[in-house]
């Protein structure tokens, strides 16, 4: 806290500081530790893990997962879930890619189209969930199929070929970096920071925690639950749109219908590894970012160590258990105390 009022006494100040959970959670420290250890070990045991040529693509791969993860964190905080983000990525990506191939559109327009498309899809989810009185997982299972259908129709049984380099500012190549930092990752970090601030210091942010903690109580306290829930899906949709641009940029010059497939599980994995409670009411976006980095580190590390690539997900599973397990143990220790 930096802006305490001059007249507040020391007791009140101390209280004000402690009303909020600590700015960085224990789970985030655990993840930082695990990632640091992994990076050091991989740096020692592989020829080039810590070289820019390895770290930069890793961060580029992390960006879309972490970006959608920010929205997913909002949603899971409200005790919801969105398993349709894979399908939504597909729709956003194919619309944007087709647009770019057809017309010589500037970067801003392409991004705008993707974000607007994603927001619309998110609004549909949010509307059905907030006003339909149906659990989020059911609605989004349904819309996941609908979005896939829509995406496949737009693909029209062919790939999108010859995608121009409009989006290369978000890409894996030289044009996608400044001072060696990939733009897509930098944007993701900025979004994470904004989301962190929003969740911690604004009414809207705290209301998400309240809704996830006890939706009925939030309603009775006068929180406008439905608009808030709806907006968290819409925000996720918007981020899905931006992530689709990152994915196009980091991909090849052709886009096929596998784009987005299975991404929902990757995103949810990042969020839960990051310490957000799947039951709602507790969690952080910074953890989500670290969760995404951890998963990508493991996958990349296995290949760079020369281990069979099929083993990659065995370790991802193990790390999910280790990371979430330590969180559980700390929670238990805290409760005992």
């Amino acid at each position, binding site marked *: 806290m930096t802006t305490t009022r001059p007249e507040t006494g020391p007791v009140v100040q101390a209280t004000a500081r402690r009303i909020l959970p600590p700015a960085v959670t224990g789970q985030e420290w655990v993840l930082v530790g695990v990632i640091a250890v992994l990076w050091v070990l991989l740096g020692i045991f592989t020829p080039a893990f810590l070289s820019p040529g390895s770290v930069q693509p890793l961060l580029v791969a992390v960006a879309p997962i972490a970006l959608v993860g920010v929205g997913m964190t909002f949603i899971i905080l409200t005790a919801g879930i969105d*398993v349709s983000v894979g399908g939504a990525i597909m729709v956003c990506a194919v619309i944007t890619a087709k647009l770019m191939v057809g017309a010589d559109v500037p970067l801003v327009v392409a991004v705008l189209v993707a974000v607007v498309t994603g927001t619309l899809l998110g609004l549909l989810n949010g509307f*059905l969930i907030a006003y*339909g*009185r*149906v*659990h989020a*997982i*059911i*609605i989004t*299972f*349904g*819309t*996941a*199929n*609908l979005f*896939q*259908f829509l995406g*496949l*129709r737009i693909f029209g*049984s062919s790939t999108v070929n010859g995608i121009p380099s409009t989006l290369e500012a978000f890409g894996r190549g030289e044009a996608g970096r400044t001072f060696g930092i990939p733009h897509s990752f930098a944007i993701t970090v900025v979004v994470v920071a904004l989301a962190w601030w929003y969740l911690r210091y604004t009414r809207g942010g705290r209301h998400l925690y309240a809704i996830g903690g006890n939706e009925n109580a939030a309603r009775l306290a006068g929180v406008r639950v439905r608009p808030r829930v709806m907006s968290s899906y819409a925000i996720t949709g918007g981020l899905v749109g931006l992530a689709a641009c990152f994915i196009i940029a980091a991909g090849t010059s052709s886009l096929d219908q596998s784009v987005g*497939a299975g991404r929902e*599980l990757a995103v*949810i*994995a990042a969020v*839960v590894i990051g310490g957000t*409670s*799947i*039951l709602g009411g507790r969690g952080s976006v910074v953890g989500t970012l670290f969760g995404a980095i951890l998963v990508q580190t493991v996958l990349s590390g296995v290949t760079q160590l020369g281990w*069979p690539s*099929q*083993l*990659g*997900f*065995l370790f*991802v*599973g*193990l790390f*999910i*258990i280790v990371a*979430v*397990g330590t969180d*559980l143990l700390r929670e*238990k220790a805290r409760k005992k105390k």
Partner: protein
Amino acid sequence: MSAPPSTPPVDATTATNVVDPPRSWASRALQALLTQRIVLLAVLIVILLGVMTILDASGLLSGSYNADYLAAALISAVPLALLGLAQLIVITSGRGGIDLSVGSMVSLTGIVFGYLYGILELPLVVAIVITVLAGALAGAVNGILVSYIGFPALIATLATFYMYRSLALVVSGQKPINAPAIQQFYDAARAVELPVIGGVLPLVPLGVFTFLLPAIVLVWLGMNKTTWGRRVYAIGTNDVAAVWAGLGNKSTRASAYVLSGVISSVVAIYTVAQFASARPDAGTSGNGMALPAITIAVLGGVAITGGIGRVAGVVLAALLIVWLNAGILLLVPGNEGSQLQLFALGAVLVFAALLNGLTKRKYGGI
């Protein structure tokens, strides 16, 4: 919000506040349709069959939508319904119960079965028993993580989904097992003519009798007629109250996941038979088996919050989707046909959930 129009004013002097107004048969049927998923699904199936029959008669289908075809389509209902039942059990057991790892368990235990029966050439019964034990073990890992250590089910089974999928590929050297014994095992899934009455009935895949019906009966008995089933519903409805009632929550919840593993191993054996090979990606290729199974369970009316779910709902949901998909393939040729299946599944799920969700309030359901 107004009262249901059919409710007549009731004598004000009744001793209790609770009234059960006499209502017409039609209005009760409507209420059942709008609030009870099982009734809704049954009606949707009837509508589907009716519409497809009419389309068939008017020559709009590229093949006949007849009993033979419906019977043949049941072969894909077997794994779907079985895994839907597995999800029914774990979701009903509450505390965010779900099992994302069923597809991976199918892959892994299928390889185990293929190895035992195809390569080691163990007797069929021995191979089946060991495979089911392997499934129980895989499920027990989930059960221990969720129930005894306290992992949220989504997280624990997401982790084991990744791990088992990986293990299945590694232990099999990513090659399907298709030894001769396995190829002949197809007989366990092929269509059969029933004795005596078989001549007038369509050929139903044998798996329906050897795998699906027994599983439906067993799960139904377990959930509805045993104290174990009571415990599952109780811990799913209110975990804390179940502890106070002395119900042994941990072992019951763990047993739900063990059963899910057991059912997965049964599906694995069935899948080996159906495809005449043990494939390390049997349950994980494409979209995998877990998400469709969960979809079938929630379409069947299983409440994702636990404590509510019925076997009949899951079975009807599987039938509806399988027959709907089969019909679409005859109705819409080309790529659009399989794409439309996605649309149909999504639309049915959203429609059924919204309809029941919105009308429950009107009829004062829970």
